């Protein structure tokens, strides 16, 4: 389905939930709505689904104006953060319910196929309450998929699960979405989840749509500081600097050689992704000396929080590394890896990343 939102805005009294925005979803692909809580993701999804009518603007599906058409008459499936199933129905009946409503043929086969894909076959005759959280959410997902709706909306569907389960289900979902049967919208607060899902990402912040494009591209070229902040985990390190002949000078006089476009403001922000900071130097690196405040260990990465003369910085190291609190650390940075933002937050320079292929 091609879903087109034109000038969509949503307000309740004096409060603005969504500032007017235009968004045309890439058909039969995944679009991630990325933003912190209160960014407007759920409000936007409710408008897409037809659960709420927008205060302004129009929604069209495959060229047809559907603004104000209620959800029942839209071809849409939804999955929420809470595991919503019919408690008195068996897993089988839960998955079959949308098909029964439409009096479809071959229900048993379809339910069996979905249950197999989501690994809930052994539980078809049980009640949802007899299942674990992860299994219950699989049932809700299977029911949504059973509809074969051309538009599928998922609002933080994995947020209430343990991280290992989340990993597993996300993997299965990516494979299901890859079949291209539906246009999928997936809301999340986690930048890494957006990257793992791939597809396209719409970055939202405080009711505004900030940027929409292929996920990796938005990540590599955030058009503003706000996008960069929203689309980085840990948050991008931002350091104040001033324009100089050879690039940017940081607070302590450290010079970062980086070609600036003409017309750049004199005060600038230099953005350093945590992964651009290393603890082993290479030729041409800039050195930032500091003290370790904490080494956070995620299991696959270590996030070293360090206090340095240019401010607090976070470096992301692959693998597990232990650091004493308060110990000295030198962070190394390849100047080609910096982002530079104008005084008004506009992106001026992004790293020319090795694209890998």
């Amino acid at each position: 389905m091609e879903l087109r939102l034109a000038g969509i805005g949503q307000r309740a009294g004096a409060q603005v939930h969504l500032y007017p925005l235009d968004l045309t979803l890439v058909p039969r692909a995944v679009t991630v709505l990325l933003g912190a809580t209160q960014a407007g993701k759920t409000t936007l999804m409710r408008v897409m689904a037809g659960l709420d009518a927008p205060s302004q603007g129009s929604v069209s599906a495959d060229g047809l104006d559907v603004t104000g058409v209620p959800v029942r008459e839209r071809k849409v499936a939804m999955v929420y953060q809470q595991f919503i199933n019919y408690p008195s129905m068996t897993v089988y009946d839960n998955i079959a319910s949308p098909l029964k409503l439409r009096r479809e043929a071959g229900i048993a086969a379809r339910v069996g196929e979905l249950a197999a894909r989501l690994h809930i076959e052994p539980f078809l005759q049980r009640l949802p309450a007899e299942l674990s959280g992860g299994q219950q959410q699989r049932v809700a997902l299977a029911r949504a998929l059973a509809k074969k709706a051309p538009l599928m909306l998922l609002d933080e569907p994995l947020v209430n699960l343990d991280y290992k389960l989340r990993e597993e289900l996300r993997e299965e979902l990516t494979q299901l979405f890859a079949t291209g049967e539906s246009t999928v919208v997936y809301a999340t607060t986690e930048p890494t989840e957006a990257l793992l899902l791939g597809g396209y990402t719409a970055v939202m912040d405080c009711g505004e749509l900030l940027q929409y494009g292929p996920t990796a591209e938005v990540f590599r070229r955030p058009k503003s500081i706000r996008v960069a902040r929203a689309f980085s985990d840990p948050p991008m390190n931002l350091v104040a600097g001033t324009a100089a002949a050879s690039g940017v000078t940081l607070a302590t006089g450290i010079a970062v050689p980086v070609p600036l476009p003409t017309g750049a403001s004199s005060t600038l922000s230099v953005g350093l992704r945590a992964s651009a900071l290393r603890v082993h130097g290479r030729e041409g690196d800039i050195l930032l000396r500091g003290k370790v405040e904490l080494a956070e260990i995620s299991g696959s990465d270590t996030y070293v929080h360090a206090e340095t003369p240019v401010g607090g910085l976070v470096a992301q190291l692959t693998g597990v590394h232990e650091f004493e609190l308060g110990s000295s650390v030198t962070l190394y940075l390849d100047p080609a890896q910096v982002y530079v933002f104008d005084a008004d937050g506009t992106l001026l320079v992004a790293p020319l990343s090795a694209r890998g292929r």
Partner: protein
Amino acid sequence: MARIELDLAHAYKPNPQRDEDYALLPLKMTFDDGGAYALLGPSGCGKTTMLNIISGLVRPSQGSVRFDGRDATTLTPQQRNIAQVFQFPVIYDTMTVAENLAFPLRNRGVGPQRIRQRVGQIAEMLEMSAQLDMRAAGLAADAKQKISLGRGLVREDVSAVLFDEPLTVIDPHLKWQLRRKLKQIHHELKLTLVYVTHDQVEALTFADQVMVMTRGRTVQIGSASDLFERPQHTFVGHFIGSPGMNFLPATVVPGAPAGATTLGVRPEYVALTAANAHGAVAGTVTQAQDIGTYWLVTSKLSDGHVLRARLSGEQAIPAVGDSIWLAVVGAHTCYYKNEELVA
């Protein structure tokens, strides 16, 4: 402060017969005085049962709990002198922050001067000095939880402080600051701390020693790097890390140690290599995910096994459908038999 020894098992129902009947399978464990420990595992692994046995809220169905060598099995949490911090704030809304922090000390009859000193010190550590005279009722959830943490840490004479998922209500971007606080406080106060969580970041960041639990069993006790580099059990390899360790039949490449049935290698240690290279396997790429700062490449081997590699974007990344060779044998490769590490 105390050294705590467990030599026990626990079943919630009478006459346990099979392993599944136990919430905690028979175990022997020592928590050293002044150590920072985490109990890590998925829901239902037995970590909360173990915490409740340490605190005295649950009495083990067999065996004993010893505090500094003395049998404490039948003692109450008060008698054991345990401080606890729970998932949600447990404070008095009508009291000020200072009164809340002072409460556990006042209860124990500590003198007013010492109370003032200690409350000031804890408030300083938690960066709550400016809020000492504010009523707790008006504070945000995370400030209230900070008070709970403070109440848990304020007494110097406790045997141990136990934490049950204490950062659940804390906003994600504030979590690292509190993790840091807890770590600093442990350094300064040298209390025996036991921290229960299902979140690997929390456990690995906080504790000197992490106990990984699954189905009532502790499968490894070790530092964060022990768990990452040398998982003693395949569950640890799987549970620690995102994605977790890859597991392949040991016969997939020649040269496995005798008796080993499974080869384990983390995605971080799988590398692209030349065809037929030593210690390498051939596969077909099924997925290449651009994670922005690195690539996650999933391949299928000819025997159907899946192998994930985390590759730096500084090299050429293969595309879906490409035939590639991946090195799986190196200094970081582990071998398992019956899920236990053998080499």
